[in-house]
């Protein structure tokens, strides 16, 4: 296995050649999302994959290999940093004297990270997924009816023919409903968050999976008929927004403004006399910039999510209240920027610059309500000595403690509610 630093080299080479991530991924026989993880050093690169990527980038695998175990040592040090009792200064000695053990420690660490991510995803689904809840409710209701009715039929000796016929009909209905509900439930659980033909995923999820599969290049894409009807409506609306964004921020002008202002959506929007949210989307959906985006409505519900490696976004339910997205929602027309670090507190925690902006619209004029909406651009940032705000995705899977904004304890091992004193426990919000 080649150590993680190869990802940065691959990304630099691709960008130097002016190639799109999706094109390189296709040439190497990978998914764009997998290459994205590799480029952001979130996945190790097997030698065979590295060879294909090197070929796609017209170079040799050696050009992207890390220098002889250095990255493995870096990884080992990162593990040691997370364990205060580990002898950090002796990581090199450990790796040299016990290479097999060192490899085992690293493998277990990687497995632990993967399991944490899986737990977070499953918990998110189980806790907040309205579709799963509705499916379970349907199945339980059918089971309740079947059980009660069948016991009546079995144990009532003098059941009148009319009642008997009625209950038999009910049983027939409920068993059919039960079979259908169970199938839907299995399909949904099997789908692992992906869309199925019956649209078990939420419409928003369907749209995001569709757009993500296209690396968010949806302006000219056909909207697949496999999407559910609500998802197709939402996809059309998003596609309309994206097309309008391209019209107000044409490629050449957008790139020129980006070169001057960097990923600053407000400066770009101002320079090109475009709507701020158009610039947010334009930046986030640019395939070569590696930026993420979340948008929320006035209730704080996330209505659009473009993930970026290293910054987890909750699939359902409430996000981290410390995100500047929500500050921007509460303070419309103000540019809110915060540098954050995510995940468990650690000197190596990934850092991001989060830029939030909120607006109020009045689609029904003076006679209607003001509708708030906010967006937050997620910009990967390099390591820095300056303090950064610790944030997470959502309290249930966030390991950061203490946290003044915590609503509930994390389910992940080692995370506890750190508030103390008379109001010990999650912030009541009152």
């Amino acid at each position, binding site marked *: 296995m080649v150590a993680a630093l190869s990802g940065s080299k691959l990304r630099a080479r691709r960008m130097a050649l002016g190639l799109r991530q999706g094109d390189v991924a296709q040439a190497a026989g990978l998914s764009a999302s997998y290459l994205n993880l590799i480029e952001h050093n979130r996945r190790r690169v097997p030698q065979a994959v590295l060879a294909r990527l090197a070929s796609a980038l017209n170079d040799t695998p050696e050009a992207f290999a890390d220098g002889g175990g250095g990255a493995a040592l870096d990884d080992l040090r990162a593990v040691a940093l997370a364990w205060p009792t580990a002898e950090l200064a002796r990581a090199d000695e450990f790796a040299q004297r016990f290479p097999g053990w060192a490899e085992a420690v690293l493998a277990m660490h990687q497995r632990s990270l993967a399991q944490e991510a899986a737990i977070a995803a499953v918990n998110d689904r189980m806790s907040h997924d309205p579709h799963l809840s509705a499916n379970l409710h349907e199945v*339980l209701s059918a089971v*309740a*009816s079947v059980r*009660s009715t069948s016991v*009546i039929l079995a144990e009532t000796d003098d059941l009148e023919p009319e009642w008997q016929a009625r*209950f038999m009909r009910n049983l027939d209905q*409920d068993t059919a409903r039960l079979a259908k509900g169970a199938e839907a439930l299995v399909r949904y659980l099997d789908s692992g968050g992906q869309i199925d033909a019956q649209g078990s995923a939420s419409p928003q999820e369907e749209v995001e999976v569709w757009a993500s599969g296209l690396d968010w290049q949806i302006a000219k894409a056909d909207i697949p008929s496999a999407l559910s009807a609500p998802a197709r409506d939402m996809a059309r609306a998003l596609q309309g927004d994206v097309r309008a964004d391209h019209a107000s921020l044409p490629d050449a002008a957008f790139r020129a403004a980006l070169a001057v202002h960097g990923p600053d959506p407000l400066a770009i929007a101002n320079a090109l006399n475009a709507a701020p949210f158009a610039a947010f989307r334009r930046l986030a959906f640019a395939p070569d910039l590696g930026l993420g985006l979340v948008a929320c409505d006035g209730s704080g519900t996330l209505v659009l999510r473009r993930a970026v490696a290293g910054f987890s976004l909750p699939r359902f339910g409430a996000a981290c209240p410390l995100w500047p997205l929500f500050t921007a929602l509460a303070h419309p027309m103000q540019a809110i920027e915060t540098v954050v670090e995510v995940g468990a507190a650690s000197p190596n925690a990934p850092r991001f610059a989060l830029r939030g902006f909120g607006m109020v619209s009045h689609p029904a004029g003076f006679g209607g309500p003001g509708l708030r909406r906010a967006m937050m651009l997620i910009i990967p940032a390099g390591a820095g000595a300056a303090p950064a705000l610790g944030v997470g995705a959502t309290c249930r899977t966030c390991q950061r403690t203490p946290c003044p904004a915590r609503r509930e304890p994390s389910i992940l091992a080692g995370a506890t509610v750190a508030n103390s004193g008379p109001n010990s426990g999650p912030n009541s919000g009152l």
Partner: protein
Amino acid sequence: MAGQILLIEDEPNIAEAIRFLLGRDGWQVTVLTTGQGAIAEIARLGPQVVILDLMLPVRSGLQILTDIRADPATLDLPVLMLTAKGQERDREAAFAAGVSNFMTKPFDNNEMRAAVRALMGGT
């Protein structure tokens, strides 16, 4: 006169089974399939026991229960909450709102009958 029971349950087949079971025990069972008009029906019917589904169209079982407990006339009316949502937080919310008993679906017929008998005062 048989004791009156108001059953508020949106699943028609479950409602039918409960109506049959309790009817065979001698109770007079009236069924409502939504939460709408529940309070007015309670006032009109004057039931001795209400069996209330938690998840109902229009108004939830918890909202109805809260209204029942807010009215001095029905402050002590026995209410059996019935729901497919058996999670502990639902149970806690129901008891906090003043429910008399709580059963999860799928339920045992005899336990249902016994629970109603107990709420009727053991008659």
